[in-house]
């Protein structure tokens, strides 16, 4: 039985490596992209956890592996008490109903040959939630209204909508199976600024009304500060720091978090002139052969000999501020 205070989502030592193979007929494994390496965190009910980092850091892989879209290399993911990677049959269907995803690209994630009605009702049909076609149609119209679209648009095709409206269709589809938990994978980064605010406000309203729990994956650190309650920072497949939103932004402890936050431009020329930037040298190393010890040590401005040898432990430095750094 679940205790009510137990987090809705528990991720423990999650690792995901993608094999690299050579040869066409006889495939040999020659290495692996270590996309996610030993990541652990929890998400409480009704909370929004932000997962930030630069491209290739593994944040999308975390989201997809958590939902079972990729098999995990090792580690466990529990959603509402169910083990995602061990579940089969009925239990797996139940997890898929409870956990949904909103994708980044509202142009690529909707089938162009399907009507809005077909797209949004697919989860309802798959999970056999409403018996009759009439009830299903009513539910689709209800969902469209919930995300701020006109209910008369159900027979239109995706190309007839703008980017912001398509993202609303994607959100309606995610809500159709009445989920508890939604992975929002860069839901606003393909949208213009004036439309981003509309979608963010919609996601917040839906959370209030339906008691949803979000994992919000993004690279826009300003928006993450706005929408998330806690934030985790990833670098090259590992989480380097995790804390409450204001604690993380006002008191970053990991040198990567510090440089990342200092690099974010502020829409205020006076503040911009005063900001101290910590500009990192070089590029992110390849996840095929990541640096040993601390993965950040090759670019870290305060690295010492120990950082190259020993992987830093994941420590709580008080008031649930976690960091993996020898120097913090």
């Amino acid at each position, binding site marked *: 039985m679940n205790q009510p205070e137990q987090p809705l989502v528990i991720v423990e030592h999650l690792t995901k490596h993608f094999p690299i193979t050579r040869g066409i007929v006889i495939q040999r494994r020659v290495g692996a992209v270590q996309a996610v390496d030993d990541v652990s965190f929890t998400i409480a009910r009704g909370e929004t956890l932000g997962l930030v980092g*630069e*491209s290739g850091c593994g944040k999308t892989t975390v989201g997809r592996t958590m939902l079972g879209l990729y098999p995990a290399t090792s580690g466990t993911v529990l959603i509402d008490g169910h083990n995602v990677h061990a579940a089969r049959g009925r239990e797996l269907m139940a997890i898929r109903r409870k956990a949904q995803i909103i994708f980044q690209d509202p142009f690529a994630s909707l089938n162009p040959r399907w009507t809005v009605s077909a797209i949004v009702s697919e989860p309802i049909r798959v999970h056999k939630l409403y018996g009759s076609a009439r009830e299903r149609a009513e539910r689709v119209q209800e969902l469209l209204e919930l995300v701020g679209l006109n209910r008369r648009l159900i027979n239109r095709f995706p190309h007839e909508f*703008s980017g*912001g*409206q398509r993202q609303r269709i994607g959100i309606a589809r995610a809500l159709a199976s009445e989920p508890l938990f939604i992975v929002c994978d860069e839901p606003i980064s393909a949208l*213009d*600024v*004036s*439309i*981003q*605010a*509309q979608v*963010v*406000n919609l996601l*917040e309203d839906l959370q209030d009304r339906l008691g949803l729990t979000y994992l919000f994956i993004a*690279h826009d*650190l*300003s*928006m993450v*500060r*706005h929408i998330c309650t806690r934030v985790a920072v990833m670098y090259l497949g590992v989480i380097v720091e995790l804390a409450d*939103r*204001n604690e993380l*932004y006002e008191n970053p402890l990991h040198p990567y978090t510090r*440089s*990342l*936050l*200092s*690099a*974010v*431009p*502020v*829409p*205020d*020329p*006076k*503040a*911009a*002139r005063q*900001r101290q*930037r910590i*500009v*990192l040298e070089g*590029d992110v190393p390849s996840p095929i052969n990541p640096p040993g010890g601390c993965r950040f040590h090759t670019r870290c401005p305060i690295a010492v000999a120990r950082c190259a040898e020993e992987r830093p432990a994941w420590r709580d430095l008080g008031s649930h501020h976690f960091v993996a750094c020898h120097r913090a």
Partner: protein
Amino acid sequence: MDRTTLLRVQDLRTRFHTPEGTIYAVNGISYKLDEGETLAVVGESGCGKSVSMMSILGLIPIPPGEIASGSALYQGRDLLQMTDAELEQVRGKEIAMIFQDPMTALNPVLTIGRQITEVLERHMGMSHQQAHLRAVELLEMVGIPSAAARLRDYPHQFSGGMRQRVMIAMALSCLPSILIADEPTTALDVTIQAQIVELVIRLREQVGLAMIWITHDLGVVAGLADRVNVMYAGFIVEEAPVDDLYDNPRHPYTLALLAALPRVDRRRDRRLKSIPGAPPNLLVEPHGCPFAPRCEFVIERCRAETPPLTPVAPSHQIACWVDIDTGAAR
């Protein structure tokens, strides 16, 4: 101190004739660029910010494109009246451009060295030897490690940030007087973006470059520009020095855009203010103020007449019928 004006664009109108109808991409914009100045052109997708720059450089395919009116004076000559041969002498040499995606702007089957030396030999009349030495110098200037060895590499062997550095080196190779940068950091991660912005600021001072920086990111603009043009649906709706624009935005669109942005350096104090609706359909000939359907200050006149760009303060202009402080007509 009065600075010399390098480029003066007047009443530029660009349209595209497509099977679906005419796209009104740029609808009569005027602006200037002074020596050593950085002008930012800000707006959302489809506002005409890229098309307006490509128009003055003769990069719009005609047809389907059409430059319906306008002039672009550069050193006393009108770029829009030049022949292709004349333009070729200006483009790349005196007015250089860098783009959002360096991978599509670089030739994938030629080494970086070949691509830089080709420009130097052709435009600057250098010998192969001279061009090679200069290419090494240029790559060092934009901060590419072991520059001499990397000249033998192909574009795919560089990371995104490094490719953008190569593009900047190529753009600066002929010592242009104007650099037009079209969303050069949009495809890059924030830490790499910070590196490129820092590099551009350093080079700008080193060579005294005038720049036009096209972007949708009001954050990048704040740290980089001297003056800002805000564009909406093919119109310039506000033009101001950078501090004025952020301290005292006067156009309802600029005001709304700034209110829609969360800040990384501040605690959340409210919901984001969103702008209702979506940008107008460019297939309809503009009539009245293009922002009127989404504007919270809209008055009757806005729907009937397109407001011209008029001053509200020294060197601060807006195209709006309303005073946003009182909500009454200006």
